[in-house]
């Protein structure tokens, strides 16, 4: 009897804790969105997103952040595409060709997890060192390379987590039909995990576009829209930083407007990821 009461108390206690934690998270999210909308929406205008900064923009004069929007998009698309070309074969390789080498695969996963945890400023410093070594200047290219390093561990591990869930029976089926391991990788496993792979790519894109520290030394900052990858470029996170550190209230509000733009881009990415996930999910074997 007493035992039952303790169990009941436990149950309701943990329910309350879980409910409160969930509430806290949801409220925080809303608070963040509310803050940037409240402070930024009045400053958000067509001019803001369609023009580059004019003289004295950072002192409250005319212009917009088109340079940073375009710069961020170039940079993140570039880095995501390079990272994708490298990550996909690695993720497939460790899940299919190395399926018997459990210890080696675990070691690779461990290293990737460590790299995932390295702060992005460290990648920035590393990218800077590489840049100097090769005699590059702050440029889109240097930024892309640095961002690629930053998101590769994220991309490989996210793809890996999806590929890991594919039952070995599917690999056996494919091999029994006379496929080689590479055919199994690209014709079967790739197809089976395509929704997850797309999610992994978009997740990495979101991480790339939101990162400020790694591009600080490598991409530089400019008021112009870059016309080649050897030119420096502006980025949204840095644009927010520069505007927010201004003592002028109008410029500070523009920082929040820029934050709205960045949040909106990431939101768009999330929604399209959901959409693509459902679109490519139809052939998937559910187990």
């Amino acid at each position: 009897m007493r035992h039952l009461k303790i169990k009941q108390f436990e149950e309701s206690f943990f329910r309350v804790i879980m409910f409160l934690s969930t509430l806290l998270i949801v409220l925080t999210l809303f608070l963040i969105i509310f803050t940037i909308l409240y402070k930024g929406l009045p400053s958000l205008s067509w001019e803001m997103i369609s023009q580059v900064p004019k003289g004295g923009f950072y002192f409250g004069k005319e212009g917009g952040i088109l340079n940073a929007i375009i710069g961020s998009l170039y940079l993140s698309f570039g880095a995501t595409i390079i990272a994708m070309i490298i990550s996909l074969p690695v993720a497939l390789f460790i899940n299919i060709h190395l399926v018997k080498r459990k210890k080696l695969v675990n070691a690779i996963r461990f290293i990737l997890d460590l790299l995932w945890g390295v702060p992005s400023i460290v990648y920035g410093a590393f990218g800077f060192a590489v840049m100097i070594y090769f005699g590059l200047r702050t440029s889109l290219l240097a930024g892309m390379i640095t961002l690629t390093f930053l998101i590769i561990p994220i991309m490989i591990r996210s793809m890996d987590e999806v590929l890991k869930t594919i039952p070995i029976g599917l690999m056996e089926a494919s091999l029994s039909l006379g496929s080689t391991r590479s055919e199994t990788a690209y014709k079967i496993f790739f197809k089976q995990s395509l929704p997850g792979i797309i999610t992994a790519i978009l997740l990495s894109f979101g991480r790339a576009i939101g990162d400020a520290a790694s591009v600080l030394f490598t991409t530089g900052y400019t008021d112009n829209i870059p016309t080649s990858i050897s030119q420096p470029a502006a980025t949204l996170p840095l644009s927010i930083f520069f505007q927010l550190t201004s003592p002028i209230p109008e410029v500070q509000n523009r920082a929040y407007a820029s934050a709205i733009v960045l949040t909106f881009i990431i939101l768009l990415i999330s929604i399209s990821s959901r959409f693509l996930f459902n679109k490519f999910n139809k052939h998937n074997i559910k187990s």
Partner: protein
Amino acid sequence: MDNDIKINIKDLNLFIGNKHILKNINISIPNKKLTVILGPSGCGKTTLLKTLNRLTDLYPEVKVKGNIFIDNEDILHTNKNITEIRKNMGLLSQQPYPLPMNIFRNVTYGLRISGRRNRKILKNRVEHYLKQVNLWDEVKDRLKDSASQLSIGQQQRLCLARGLAVDPEIILADEPTSALDPISSQTIENEFLTFNGNYTIIVVTHSLRQAKRIADYVIFMYLGEVIEQNSADEFFNNPKEEKTKEYLKGIFN
């Protein structure tokens, strides 16, 4: 006599880590007959089956010693391409694993990767093999639908058709009916009986009744050892070993 033996296993031992899973297996599997590997759960039947087309290559810590001769070629020590060897053996697993593509492509997958892409021939083959497994009438209007939408029983028949389409000589079936409803199970069993004589079929099962219904030849395994192997007639009516007699009486299971 030797011409009637398709697979000859000599002194096969298999270890996973330190565990001795298959112990001194010596068996001969007759050509174009239906052989049942019978035994209680965990006796190594599935492992033995997977050794035959070297799917054991996929599992960590597995060590295989001994010889497996298929048509006098030792597949454990061969220079031949392992993909070619596997292609010669259709596999039906416990759970069906349709490929993540539509029904048509599932059946033609094996043909396409070996370079046959003529649409007319492919269409022909799809109809032929789906008819062979009694699935054609159920799916002929929805060949472009995803295979994952089929019921489990249909999926298993699709997997059989897909395996037959690469024109194997041997069919390996690992408890192919254990996940299926009674009607689908019966269909699969009947298909095996129909194919019998054209293929060397090896079925792993723990069901005595199923073995009785379909087997020409029985291999009885217990705790990683082959206890007895004989023609189905002899095995069921005149078992030699104590263990076999006990199993047939249902004393352990």
